[in-house]
């Protein structure tokens, strides 16, 4: 699949102009998100979650997503890793029951470190599933997917408004920061303490803007005849124009059922066997052997 030369901007990033994912109904793509996000919860074995991550990257490639766009998530990956491993190091739990390991002059405890590693890989599998979804679905696809599941209109509508609010929040934040930089604020010259203080101060205008926007949106909803129930003024059923433009085809049923079936199998196997447990992990066993544990 050739990489897309053109990408379309969305609230949460960019999506390829063309992608084989677009041949599927939004609800099928939502099912993929569901499976990629939920399946890792049943799996402790890191190599299986790593395999899910590898599959997800295969889907990124197949879906025409520009791999360079994923670079922006590096900081997130590092931050989450640092946070999890620091917590495991600083708050390991009841030390008497843990296995101490000496590494580069530090005394670590194996069980919390193993937990941090297993959880981190699981979290990454879930996170890349979500990134794949938002890298191959526009806002409209998200809403159509939710509405096809027959969620009440106000629920899907509030979900859309929330997505839009996230975008507006980022825009407002950028505007406030640019306004400060235009008045000679040099962020690089500030100490960490000063930066924290500055970011705290941002909450005041951001909160004020958010309140104003809430007021404006409320007036706009009233002006366009929206009622809390989401039902039309005529009393009949609400037409869902956008949802009706998409058709669920046989291949959508096949893929969705296949994905959901896989999820069910994973859940059953996880509950009835130890195949997905840490104890069954050759990778963990190998690391334990390296460290001389067990």
């Amino acid at each position, binding site marked *: 699949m050739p990489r897309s030369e053109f990408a379309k901007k969305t609230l949460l990033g960019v999506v390829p102009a063309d992608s084989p994912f677009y041949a599927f109904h939004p609800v099928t793509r939502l099912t993929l998100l569901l499976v990629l996000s939920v399946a890792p919860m049943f799996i402790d074995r890191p190599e299986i979650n790593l395999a899910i991550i590898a599959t997800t990257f295969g889907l990124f490639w197949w879906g025409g997503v520009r791999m360079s766009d994923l670079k922006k998530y590096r900081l997130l990956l590092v931050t989450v890793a640092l946070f999890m491993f620091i917590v495991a190091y600083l708050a390991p739990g009841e030390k008497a029951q843990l296995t101490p390991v000496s590494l580069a002059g530090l005394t670590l405890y194996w069980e919390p470190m193993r937990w941090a590693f297993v959880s981190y890989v699981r979290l990454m599998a879930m996170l890349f599933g979500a990134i794949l979804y938002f890298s191959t679905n526009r*806002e*409209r696809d998200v809403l159509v997917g939710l509405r096809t599941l027959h969620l009440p209109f106000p629920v899907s509508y509030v979900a859309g408004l929330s997505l839009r609010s996230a975008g507006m929040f980022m825009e407002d934040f950028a505007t406030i920061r640019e306004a400060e930089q235009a008045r000679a604020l040099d962020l690089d010259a500030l100490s960490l303490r000063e930066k924290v203080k500055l970011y705290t101060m941002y909450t005041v205008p951001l909160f004020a803007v958010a309140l104003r926007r809430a007021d404006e949106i*409320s007036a706009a909803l*009233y002006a366009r*005849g929206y009622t809390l129930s989401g039902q*039309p*003024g005529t009393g009949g059923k*609400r*037409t869902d124009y956008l949802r009706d433009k998409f058709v669920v085809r046989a291949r959508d049923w096949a893929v969705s059922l296949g994905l959901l079936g896989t999820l069910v199998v994973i859940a059953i196997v996880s509950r009835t066997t130890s195949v997905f447990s840490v104890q069954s992990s050759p990778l963990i066993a190998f690391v334990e052997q390296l460290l001389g544990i067990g």
Partner: protein
Amino acid sequence: MNAIELNGVTWRYEHAEEPALVDVNLAISEGEFVLVIGPNEAGKTTLVSAIKGLIPNAITGVLKGDVLVFGDRVESIKPPVLAKQIGFVFADPESQFTALTVEEEIVFGLENVGWPRETIGERVEWAARITGVEDLLDKPPYDISGGQKQRVAIASVIAMQPRILILDEPTAMIDPLGKDLVVRICAELKNDHDMTIVVVEHNIEAFAPLADKVVMVNEGRVERIAPPREIFRDLDHLLARDVHPPQVTQVFGRLRERGLYHGELPLSDEEGFAGWRTLLDGAAR
């Protein structure tokens, strides 16, 4: 029957000491194009918010008097019914966007009032064509230019084909080219679709030629209601309130004050050219 009627309307915003509207009486007939003018903070937006029913239904305060839309009190009309009767384009187009794509933005109101799928499709196509936003339908409304945003805002309102269209400063936040497009859209709606149109605008020059009636608002009161040529006669009164009639009207107004011109005040460049021709022909004779 009047399309809009305000009888003794006084409105004070919650926590405000002074009323924003004071004893306003106004009648607008069906099919009229009304231009609302006045200085900043005069009460223009408050006036049209009262007509739309945002006051008192969505904004809190104390209302006295009656606002009637086709004979019914505006606060008694349900929002979906009122949305069919009156479309409202806000001054900041972005503030009215509630959807994630332009198409969904246009569709939203149509779904609220309960149109069937086929009608919605036709209306979307029609509104997108008139406003020239056909190529933007799958784009997010927050990721387009200011002029495009204003046209999307107008498209999303006119798609409902309301009997009354209110535009609150529709050219305030856009470039000259975008302004021309908005004026062209208003002209088309007035001439071809017979809508009752109320425009609040500082850019009087652009809308004066379209207006049947001008409403001058100052300090919460309706000071004058008259056809544009009549209201622009008293130049000093308007300029003292920082209201600027079209330049061509001002020039001919001054000539008229000096007894050099006796014809109708021109409202557009074309009428101005005709006026100059009359003057030059007179001088040549």
